[in-house]
């Protein structure tokens, strides 16, 4: 019962944080931007979903859609501010990193200003029902979270694998110079990428708000978890992010079972540092230095 609860919790969190990590990973490897405004996009889309549930309808799909849409808009905003003006200037990576941090500072403070410090909560978008599975009670939001996040991430990955835009994004991930030679516009593709990854953040925000509240600074912890997973899996690798999400989720479950909740972050970082010391570019880290040159 206890173990089952912890494991199921860990799986749910791993799914959500994995979604965030994959978003971060795709952003980094395709447009070369470390999007530390991800926490802001996360919080923003939470508020978008909240507004939709307050003023439009509390229908789960609408709320989810509103969150994803706001996230996509937030991603495009970050792209317009931090990617478009400086992407062909010298020192882009550092400046992009700092720019996204600045956006994060401005954005979260603006959210605080607009919505006040009080946390909001979203309606239960998956309804109220339970499933007993071999002694483990799985609530509706857990199943809903896992299924939705896996489905959406799989859909995004499939889309990237099969469609033309996906081909463009993947081509840009591998060789931006050659991509422009075959007629792929870096700026336009950048907007696509940031919209998609922003949408993923929005999805994660709505899903996580089934467990936690929405607050202006609520995006920070999920972002840091997402960043840790992306780091651990290797920036730019979707497979690595999935594996890392599972490993870290397992670690979280085991630590809180064996040592206690307050040691989760410590063991997690020790684990990440050990993994990074062994493989400096994460589990499935890109061993080539394509992006560095």
């Amino acid at each position, binding site marked *: 019962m206890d173990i089952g609860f912890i494991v199921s919790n860990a799986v749910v969190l791993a799914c959500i944080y994995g979604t965030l990590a994959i978003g971060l990973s795709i952003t980094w490897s395709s447009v070369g931007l470390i999007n530390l405004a991800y926490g802001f996009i996360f919080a923003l889309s939470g508020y978008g979903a909240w507004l939709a549930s307050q003023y439009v309808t509390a229908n789960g799909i609408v709320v989810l859609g509103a969150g994803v849409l706001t996230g996509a808009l937030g991603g495009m905003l970050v792209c317009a501010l931090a990617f478009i003006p400086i992407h062909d200037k010298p020192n882009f990576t550092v400046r992009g990193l700092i720019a996204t941090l600045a956006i994060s500072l401005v954005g979260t403070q603006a959210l605080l200003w607009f919505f006040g410090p009080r946390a909001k909560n979203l309606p239960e978008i998956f309804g109220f029902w339970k499933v007993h599975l071999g002694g483990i009670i799985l609530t509706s939001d857990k199943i809903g979270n896992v299924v939705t996040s896996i489905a959406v991430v799989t859909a995004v990955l499939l889309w990237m694998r099969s469609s033309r835009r996906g081909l463009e994004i993947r*081509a840009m991930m591998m060789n931006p110079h050659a991509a422009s030679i075959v007629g792929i516009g870096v700026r336009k593709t950048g907007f696509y990428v940031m919209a998609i990854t922003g949408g993923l953040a929005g999805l994660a925000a709505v899903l996580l708000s089934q467990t936690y509240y929405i607050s202006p600074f609520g995006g920070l912890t999920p972002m840091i978890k997402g960043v840790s997973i992306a780091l651990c899996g290797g920036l730019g690798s979707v497979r690595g992010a999935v594996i890392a999400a599972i490993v870290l989720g397992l670690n979280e479950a085991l630590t809180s079972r064996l040592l206690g909740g307050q040691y989760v972050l410590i063991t997690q970082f020790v684990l990440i540092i050990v993994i990074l010391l062994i493989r400096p570019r994460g589990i499935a880290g890109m061993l080539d230095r394509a992006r560095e040159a």
Partner: protein
Amino acid sequence: MSAIVALSPPPALAPAPGKRAVLTVKGLSAGYGPMRVIHDLDLIVSSGERLGLVGLNGHGKSTLFYAIAGLTGWQRGSILLNGVEVGRTRSQGPGRYTHTVVRQGLALIPQGDEIFHGLTVEEHLDSGAFTPRAWKERKARKERIYAIFPPLVKLMKTPVGRLSGGERRMVSIGRGLMADASLFLVDEPTLGLAPKIGKSVLDALMSVELEDSAMVIAEQNVALLEGRVDRVIGMHAGKLKGEASAALGFQTRREL
């Protein structure tokens, strides 16, 4: 000499009789930072023409191609591609407008292997088909490429990163040929390849039916182009020097 020549009216830039001008370059200067690589260059390429561009290393062949695609550090001058002005005076943002130029009907096959090492050969060829029409016809077009480069059929599903140099070059050229382009710029197709493979790659390029489009091949090895192209232009120190139809062999015409 050229200061004097410049004062007399410039030679008329006109396409070959009965042909359409695919590319008209007028007064193009381009370079990187403080370095000026191309000096006031005029060039016209008419449809259905295969043009050889020969010259030593560092005399601006690749830069000319990059300038047409908007990839140089800075450039100035007029470039008409199918009658549409694609050259712009700019001093930064190399590659920012390249995709729009490419969509006007340019296929640049760059020097070396600018490939996406993780994509398979098939996806690679797909990525070359950027116009909606080419994307719709990509199956047929791929068949055409496979007919030109038979070795690629077996490698369809292999990631390009695993191919040998010659195969990569085939993929790179194939990607260029997938496009719905009216101007093919081929930069040093035989560079770094074994002579035999280089020859076969060049033969494959020659077997492409140009119809209304045109092809410019930059090459250091004049002997390889001998008798295969319609016209050969020499390039020296960022200027075009001398011209000969390929049948005559290459010789510099002394001006003045």
